[in-house]
C-alpha cells in the first residue's frame, strides 16, 4: 500500500544569491495511512517550513512531495491544518467557526451541524457552541480550531506546534483530548513540536530534525500500545525513550555546532 504522505529529497531555499538560506535539505520520509508522526526538533530547524510545504502553502525548491499518491503543488481541501494560534474569526461563534470551511467549500452547512456538535462534545466543549472566541480561554479556542480542522473529514491532519502557546497544564489537557480524538478518527497526522514528551505520548513514530541545512536525522518508532493514556508518561520505558531522544537531538545540534566552527 502506498503511503499517505511521502517526501522525496525535499529542499527549501529562501532568498537568492548571497542572501540565500537553505532551510531544509534532502528531507526524505513517508507517513502511512492512519499513522501519527511527529516532527521533533529545536526552534528554527525547518520543521514548520516542511509542514507548510506539505500543506501546499510554501513552494518547494527541490524534491517532491506526494499526498494520497499525487504530487502537492497547491493547497488541498482534504488536508486539515491546525496552527499555533487558533486563527478563529472573532465575529463568529464557535459553531460558525467550525463550519467555516464547509461554507467555503460551498457545501450545505446544515448537513454538518450534527458533526460539528459531535466534535465539540469529543473535545469536551459542548457548552461553547454559541460562544464567541472572546468568551473562550486559549485552550478552548485551540480545541475549536481542532474541530474546524476535522469538520470536512480530511484524510490528513497537519498540526504546526498547536499547543506551544498554551500553559503547561492546559497543554497536558490538550494532549489527552488529541489522544482521544485520534482513537476516534484514526487520521493520518503529521505533528510539529519541540516538546519531547508530547511527541512520545502522541506519536507512532518520531522524526528528529536537525543539522545545517536541516534534514531528518533520526526516525524512531514509539513502541507503546494504543489506546494510550496520559499515565504512561510516568513509566520508566517512557522516560528512557525521552532521554534517548534528547541524546539524538543533542547529537544533531552538536553536529551543527561543529559544522559552524568548521566554517567560522
Amino acid at each position, binding site marked *: 500500500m502506498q503511503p499517505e504522505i511521502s517526501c522525496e529529497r525535499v529542499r527549501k531555499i529562501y532568498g537568492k544569491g548571497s542572501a540565500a538560506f537553505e532551510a531544509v535539505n534532502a528531507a526524505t520520509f513517508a507517513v502511512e495511512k492512519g499513522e501519527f508522526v511527529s516532527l521533533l526538533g529545536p526552534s528554527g530547524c525547518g520543521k514548520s517550513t516542511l509542514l*507548510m510545504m506539505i*500543506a*501546499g*502553502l510554501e513552494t518547494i525548491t527541490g524534491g517532491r512531495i506526494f499526498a494520497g499518491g499525487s504530487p502537492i503543488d*497547491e*493547497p*488541498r*481541501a482534504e*488536508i486539515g*491544518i491546525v*496552527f*499555533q*494560534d487558533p*486563527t478563529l*474569526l*472573532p*465575529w463568529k461563534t464557535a459553531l460558525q467557526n467550525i463550519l*467555516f*470551511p464547509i461554507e*467555503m*467549500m460551498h457545501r450545505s452547512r446544515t448537513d454538518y451541524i450534527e458533526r460539528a456538535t459531535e466534535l465539540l462534545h469529543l473535545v469536551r466543549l459542548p457548552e461553547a457552541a454559541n460562544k*464567541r*472566541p*472572546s468568551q473562550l480561554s486559549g485552550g478552548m479556542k485551540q480545541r475549536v480550531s481542532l474541530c474546524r480542522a476535522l469538520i470536512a473529514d480530511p484524510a490528513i491532519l497537519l498540526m504546526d506546534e498547536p499547543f506551544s502557546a498554551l500553559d503547561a497544564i492546559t497543554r497536558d489537557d490538550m494532549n489527552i483530548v488529541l489522544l482521544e480524538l485520534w482513537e476516534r478518527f484514526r487520521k493520518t497526522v503529521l505533528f510539529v513540536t519541540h516538546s519531547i514528551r508530547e511527541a512520545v505520548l502522541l506519536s507512532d513514530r518520531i522524526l528528529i530534525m536537525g543539522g545545517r541545512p536541516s534534514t531528518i536525522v533520526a526516525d524512531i518508532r514509539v513502541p507503546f500500545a494504543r489506546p494510550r493514556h496520559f499515565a504512561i508518561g510516568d513509566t520508566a520505558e517512557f522516560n528512557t525513550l525521552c532521554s534517548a531522544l534528547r541524546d539524538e537531538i543533542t547529537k544533531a545540534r552538536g553536529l551543527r555546532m561543529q559544522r559552524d566552527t568548521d566554517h567560522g
Partner: protein
Amino acid sequence: MVEPSSSSVAVPRGIGPTRAWFVRLPTQVPALALPVATAFLFLAAWQMIAVLGHISPAILPPPTMVLARLTENFSLIMKHTYPTTIETLLAFGISIPLGIALAALLVYSTVAQQALYPNIIFFQLIPKIALAPLFIVWLGIGPSSRITFSVFICFFPILIATAAGLRAVETNMLRLCRSLRMSEWQVLVRIRFPTSPPYIFSGMKISVTLAIIGVVVGEFIASQQGLGYLILFASSRQQTDLALACIAVLCVVGLLLYGLVVVAEKAITALYDFR
C-alpha cells in the same frame, strides 16, 4: 520553595515612601471633575484678565459677554449653523465610502497599489488647504465646491486607516484561507473587511474634524452663509464676542459629530466582538 507570605514583607504604615499630594487623586473624585474644574478655572482667569485688565472687548471679550451674545443672537447663529452642519455631514458621508472603496482597491489589486499608493503618499504632503481657492474657481461659490473641498481633505485618513486595517490580517489566518482555497475576493469580503472596523473608526475620528475644517475654510473663502462666513463677518466688524460665540457653537457641532462616530464604533464593535 516556600513563598514568603505577604505579611512578612509588608511595610508598616507611615514608613513607606509617601507621594506628593498632586501625584495621585483621592479615589472618590469622579473622572470628569478634574477636567471640568480646570476648564472653569481657565474661564475664570480669562474673565478676570478681561475685566480687571480693562481690555477692549474687540480684543478679548470676557466669557460672560460671549455667552450673552450667544443667547442674544441665538437664532442668527443657528441659521448659519445649519448649512455648516449639513455640508460637513455630506462631506463626511461621501468620504467614508470613497476612502473605504479606494483602500479596498489598493489592497485587492497589486497594480492599483503600485500605481496609486506612492502618489497618494505624495498627495498627503501637499498642504491641501492651499488648494481651497482653486475649488471655488473650479466649482463656483455654492455648497458643491465646499463639500468637494472638504471631501478632498477628509477622505485621506479613512483611506490610509482602512488600507492598514485590511492588511492587518495575521499570516496564519491568510494561510488558513489559502488552505481552504478561498479567492482573493473572498478573503477581502469574508476576512479583511470584518477585521478592519477598529482601524476604519480610528480614521473616521480624524476625518470628522477635518470635514468641519474643510467646510469652514470653504466658507471663509466664498460664502454668504455658514458659521465660517459669520465668523469672518463678525471679525471684520470687530464683533469679537460674536465670532467667539460662533466658534463655541462649532466646537459643539464637532463634539456631536465625533460622538456620532464613537456611538457607531461602539455598536459595530459589539456586533463584531473585537476584544
